[in-house]
Structure formats: structure tokens, C-alpha cells
């Protein structure tokens, strides 16, 4: 530790270079800790359970070509075919597809004839196979039966009388946890809808929605000239079923146009923005750390080269190799430590702007300290290579070049 004074005066002689290294580290810490907090936030969002067997599900949308199309008969016939198909576990019609980014929602109330407020929920219209076809788990109450089903036109003035809802929606409406058998109402409506069943969860149509996870399912088949199906394959059979499904349906009735996708694809597309953020920011963090490390290596090499003679003299005067390496490592540590201390402050300022201007999550202390620690380790490792090389400078150097 006796070296501290000469070390500081050596840094002072190279103050601009030292300052540049410290500045780089400070900016880097500010950037990567803010990037890290965004990456963490998005990763958590993407990790939310969907409540569905996403990997096994195929979604199908078709548009009938004839204007007057008997949709009800078509759905009955298609469902019979699909549910019998080898490799298919179950299938159900639906008005919309979960995780697809396209859906419909309404506000609901616990009392009749309410006009203001209400809890938004994503609504699906399907049948008794919906729960199984999506791989959801019924946690309370009962499934729909064939007797519950109603066939209605797209603009019929019809409100269903029963619904299956997600646990999340049930808890929002009835926080005491006794939602089963209770009623809810549309805005300004006095028609009661009874909660007959509760499923564990379903993330619904829109992953970015504030109310994602509020889902209600009605036992209704809306006829019209287009329809959607969800088809759940046996595990591992999805791609095989996907290849056959259009032929099977087109053979029964070719007068329609199909669009067939997997639910994994819908999910990936819905999260594409978040995934882009995670990947781009991770790349930025990695590259930045790498560049800073290269800068430290380059500059430490330069300093060592500049001081070859002095190192030789010190070695000749009896300093050990370890002492030489330690000197350069310590010198680097002082500069890096200063930079990182500055960086902690800069990170807070950056984050303040991110939160206030761009609605990004606030920076937490553990994330910031973890980033600081990583950056400090990287700078030590970067200085290690040149510092070890410096120890190899022979004492003879001192005598040779004078």
C-alpha cells in the first residue's frame, strides 16, 4: 500500500487518459444498468404463464366464399371431423384467438344498470370443448354442456346467461373469493350473467393490455361468413396435424379460404416488440462492455510501454514480478472505481429521464450494484493481461536503453 502516493502522482501525469477511461466506465454503467432494468422488466412480462398448452395448439380462421353460408351446420360438421382426426386431442370454435392481438372486450359490473366504471374483460364465444382445446384448467364449478349453447346472428340483441371466467376476473369482481354462482352485468344492463365455472388462468387476446388475464367465455356460436377454430394436438403431433388439417376440412367443403397458424406463432408475434427490446438491449450491453474492456486493455498496454524503462529500473532495484503486476492492477482499480462511482450517479440521472419521459421501469439498487460489480470485474480482468505482461519486462531493459 506504500505505492499509493507514487501511483496517484503517476495517474495525475496521465490525467486525461485516466479521465477518459473513467468517463467510459461511468457512461457504460449508466447505459447498461438502465438497459438491464428494461430487459428484466420485459423478460418478466414474457415469462407470465398463458394458462394454455400453447405449444400444442393450432389456430384456424376461414372465410366462406358464398354470401349465404350455413355456418352453424358447417361448424357442427367440421368439429365432428376434427375431433375424430388422429393426433387431435380436442377442437373448439371461437370468435377470437387468444394471444393473437385481435379480440373483443367489454366492461362488466357486479350490479345491474351501472353506467360508470366497470371492469374490462376479454370475451370469447365458444362451447364445452374450449377449456380442453386450449389446455386450460377448470378450478371451480362446471364446464358448459350442449344444452347451454345458443346460436345467434352477428347483430342479434342477445346476452348470454352463464359464463366461465378466469380466476383473475372472478377475484377482481368478487375480492372475497366467492365468485362462483354470483352474477355480473354488462354496462347499463340488468340481464344477470351467472359465473358457472372458473378456470385457473388465460392471458387472453392482448398481451400488452392492462387487464390481460381478465377473460370471460360464453356458450355462444355467432354465425356469419367467417369462423375461427382452436385445435389442440396430442403432444408432439402439432406439426403433423397442421399439415393435414386444411385437406381434411377443404375436402368436406372447398368453398372457403383458410388461414392456419400455430399458437406459438401468435405468441411470438404478440411479444415481438418486447423480444426485440430484450435482444437489442442485451446486444448493446454485451458490445459496450466488450468495447470498454478493449479500451482498457489498449490503454494499459500503452502506459506500460511508456513506462518500460521505469519498470525495468524497479525490477533492477528488487521489485518482484508480483509487485509490478499488482501496481498496474491497483492503478487500474483506482481509475475504474472512480469511473464506477461516477457511473452510479449517472445511472440514476439516466433512469430519471427514462421513467419520466418514456414510461420505463425505475432502476432498483440491486440491479445497479450488480451491474457495477460486473463492470468492475470486467475492468480488472481487462487490466490483468497487460499487467502480467508488464511483469515480464526484464530488469536489463533499464540498463539497455539508457
Amino acid at each position, binding site marked *: 500500500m506504500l505505492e499509493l502516493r507514487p501511483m496517484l502522482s503517476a495517474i495525475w501525469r496521465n490525467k486525461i487518459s485516466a479521465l477518459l477511461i473513467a468517463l467510459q466506465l461511468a457512461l457504460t454503467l449508466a447505459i447498461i444498468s438502465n438497459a438491464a432494468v428494461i430487459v428484466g422488466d420485459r423478460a418478466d412480462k414474457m415469462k407470465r404463464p398463458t394458462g394454455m398448452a400453447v405449444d400444442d395448439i393450432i389456430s384456424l380462421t376461414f372465410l366462406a366464399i358464398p354470401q349465404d353460408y350455413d355456418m352453424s351446420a358447417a361448424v357442427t360438421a367440421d368439429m365432428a371431423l376434427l375431433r375424430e382426426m388422429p393426433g387431435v386431442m380436442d377442437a373448439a370454435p371461437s370468435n377470437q384467438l387468444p394471444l393473437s392481438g385481435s379480440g373483443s372486450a367489454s366492461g362488466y359490473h357486479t350490479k345491474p344498470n351501472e353506467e360508470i366504471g366497470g371492469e374490462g374483460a376479454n370475451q370469447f364465444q365458444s362451447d364445452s370443448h374450449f377449456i380442453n382445446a386450449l389446455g386450460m384448467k377448470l378450478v371451480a364449478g362446471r364446464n358448459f354442456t350442449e344444452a347451454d349453447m345458443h346460436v345467434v346472428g352477428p347483430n342479434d340483441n342477445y346476452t348470454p346467461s352463464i359464463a366461465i371466467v378466469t380466476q383473475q376476473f372472478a377475484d377482481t369482481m368478487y375480492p372475497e373469493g366467492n365468485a362462483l354462482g354470483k352474477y355480473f352485468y354488462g354496462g347499463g344492463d340488468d340481464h344477470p350473467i351467472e359465473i358457472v365455472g372458473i378456470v385457473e388462468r388465460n392471458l387472453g387476446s392482448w398481451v400488452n393490455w392492462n387487464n390481460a388475464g381478465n377473460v370471460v367465455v360464453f356458450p355462444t356460436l355467432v354465425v356469419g361468413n367467417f369462423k375461427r377454430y382452436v385445435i389442440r394436438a396430442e403432444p408432439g403431433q402439432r406439426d403433423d396435424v397442421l399439415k393435414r388439417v386444411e385437406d381434411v376440412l377443404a375436402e368436406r367443403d372447398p368453398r372457403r379460404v383458410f388461414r392456419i397458424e400455430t399458437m406459438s406463432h401468435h405468441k411470438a408475434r404478440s411479444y415481438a416488440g418486447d423480444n426485440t*427490446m430484450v435482444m437489442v438491449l442485451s446486444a448493446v450491453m454485451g458490445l459496450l462492455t466488450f468495447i470498454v474492456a478493449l479500451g482498457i486493455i489498449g490503454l494499459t498496454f500503452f502506459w506500460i510501454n511508456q513506462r518500460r524503462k521505469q519498470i525495468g529500473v524497479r525490477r533492477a532495484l528488487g521489485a518482484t514480478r508480483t509487485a509490478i503486476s499488482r501496481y498496474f492492477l491497483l492503478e487500474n482499480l483506482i481509475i475504474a472505481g472512480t469511473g464506477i462511482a461516477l457511473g452510479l450517479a449517472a445511472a440514476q440521472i439516466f433512469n430519471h429521464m427514462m421513467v419520466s419521459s418514456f414510461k420505463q421501469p425505475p432502476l432498483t439498487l440491486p440491479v445497479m450494484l450488480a451491474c457495477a460489480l460486473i463492470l468492475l470485474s470486467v475492468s480488472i480482468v481487462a487490466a490483468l493481461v497487460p499487467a502480467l505482461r508488464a511483469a515480464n519486462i526484464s530488469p536489463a531493459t533499464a540498463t539497455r536503453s539508457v
Partner: protein
Amino acid sequence: MFGYYISLALRSIRGTPILSALMIAAIAVGVGAAMTTLTLNHMMSQNPLDRKDSVLYAVQLDGWDPNEAYDSNNQMPWQLTYKDAQALLRSDIPTHQIAMHRTGFTVEKDNSDLRPFTADTRATTRDFFTLFDVPFIYGGTWNADADKSPVQQVVLSKETNDKLFDGENSVGKSISLNGEPFTVVGVIDHWNPVPKVYDLNNGPFNDSEELYIPFGLHRRFEMYSWGNTNGWKNDDSEGYEGFLQSENIWIQYWVQLDTAEQVEQYRDFLTGYIRQQKEQGRFERPLKFGLSHPSEWLVLNEALRDDNRVLGWLSLAFLLVCVVNAVALLLAKFLRKAPEAGVRRALGASRNAVFTQHLIESACIGITGGLFGILLAILGLQSVKHLAMGYIDQLAYMDWQMVLAAIGLAILASLLAGAYPAWRISRTNPSIYLKTQ
């Protein structure tokens, strides 16, 4: 002298290959990252209707729920109800005006092996093409009566015409939409504004529609919007007619007002319309309407998202770190060559000459870094395009403006990086170095 300095610079760069490579890499990575995000942000914040920005207006009316605003920012609804759109169409104040929405049809060509397909379709009044300056290759728009009564005519996009008729003049020919015969009256040239400013409902970077059909066909085909339909009122309307007369919003409305007088008159017209509707018990919210130029419309609709701004700023900060990095390395490199500079100074070179020489060396490093940076940006854009899964396919390329900007940014970065080290070395006292030689 300039040529000599360049040859000196090249020799110096070759003399320290590792240090030079590090600096080039730092500038290349910084420019690459910055240009990737700046290109995306530049494309996202373009205004494709720039030329007519001052005369075009998106129309909003606040006929929403008296109890709650349309959204938490107290924004008016983005779209209009069908009946309000029909009422506005009766005004003769605007030079051109359009009511429209996106929908979809199945398409078949008779006596053809082509498989039926689904086409994105825009149901619109006939002025769409004049208002947005959409060029026709063949034919033109439909007659005015087609916007009021069901006339089965269609305008094809160039791409659809290529697919159905191999790009030949198809005016007068017939295709089947949802199984019903339609006559082709026009084919437009390739037209795909980015962002899709005229209808931002389904995402600002979607493609334009493949077919255009008259606005008079709603009842005939019971068309719904393939976009957003929002409602607030629980009325007892039945059937499709009930839907058309409901308070659901799903129609986009644009007007062209060429003079200040027209704007004034149109404002009075809208005020009068809302007042009159208030008397009938509609529009219970405070009297409010919106007329936004395309440029304002893009900002209101947040075509450029916060995430993109964050990436833009972060990548500029990234570039800053790379520049600081390059300053440190250049300083190291130049100081090592200080003896050479000392000799030049002693032989009579002015400080300015030494400064220029070293600045040129920095610029050479910067330009090389910039060129690699452009390559990296192209790679970066490809990866982002891949990650975005089709949302930004039209954006992820560099136009000549952005290539120039990239080169400019690289030179600027390298000059910024080189200025201090070059100045520093031009100030060194030659005598010190002469002594040690």
C-alpha cells in the same frame, strides 16, 4: 500536402495495426448501433403525405359516453360512427372527402386455376385516390353514385392485378368477391405509404390494401371493419341495420380543405352538426371535434413508440462511449509518435500543419470505421427485422439519406475523437524529443 498527409496517415495506421483496428472497431460498432436505431426511428417518423400535409385533415368527433372520455388521456375517439360519416359526406365544403374502413373479401377469378384467396380490402368513397394522390395505371375510380347505392365495382392494387391478370389492363374484366361478380374499373400503381397514416388502427406499418371497393356496398355485403370497432352504448338495435345506426365507431374520415376560408366554414359546419345532434340527445359530452394534419395525426397516434425513442437515445449514448474510447486510444497512439511530431516541428512545420496531419489520420480511421459501421447497421436492421416478425418489414432498410447520415456521423465522430489528441500533439514542445533522440 493533403495527399502527403493521407499517405502519412495510412503508414501510421499500418504501423500500429492492433491499436488502429481497435479504434476502427469502436467507431464501426458505435456507428452501426446508432444507425440501426436511427434508421428505424427515421422511417417510423416519416410523413408519407408530406406534400399535401397542409391541406389534409383527419376528422374526429367526440360523441362518446357522457360518463367517461374515450381514453385516459382525454383523447377523442379515433374513428366515427357510420351515421355521422354519412352525415358529414353531405357537406359540400371540402374539396375532397372520404369515409372508409378496412375489411376483407375472398377473391376468385372465373375460369382460372388460381386458388381462391382472402384480400385486404378498403371500402371507401371515390375521392380516396384523388385525396391521397394515388396514381392509376389503368382506368380510374368509380362513379359518385357507387358511394350511395350498391354498385359492384372494384379498383385493384398493382400487386393484385399482377396476381390475377399478369399485370395486363384488366379494366372491364370481372372477378368474384365473396362469390359475387365485380367489374374492375381501375388499377392503381404500387402505393404503400409508411407509416400507414390514413389508417393507423391495425398497426402503423401494415401494408396498404389489395382491393378498393365503393362505400355504397355495406348493406349488400353486411361488411364489418377488419380493424377496431369500439362501442359504449348498450342499445337495443337489431341486425345489420341496427349496427349501422349504432354508436359504434369504425369509420375513418379525411377531408381536403384548400383555403383558410374552407377550414373556417368546415369548422362552423362541424360545430353546427354537433349542436344539431345535441338537440336530438346525442353528443352529450362537451362540444369537441378534431381536425389534424397528417403530421399531427402521426404524433397523436404515437406511430413512433417510446421503446423506439429509448433505443434511439441509448444507441447515441453507446456511440458517445465509442467516441470517448477512440479519444483515449488516439491519444495514446499520437503520444507514442510524439518524437516524430517533434522532428517535424523542429524542421519547420507549424503547429497547424501537425494538427491537420493528425486530424486527417483520425478522419481516415473514422471513414473506415464508418464504412464498416454501415455494414453493421445493415446487419443490425436485418436482425431487428427478423426479431420484429413482419411488423416492420417496410422500414428495415437504409435509404440514401441514411447512408449519407451514417458516413457523416462516422466522420463527425472521428473528428470529435481526433480533435483533442491532434491538438495535444501539436502543442508538444519539440525540444524534449529532440534531446532524447
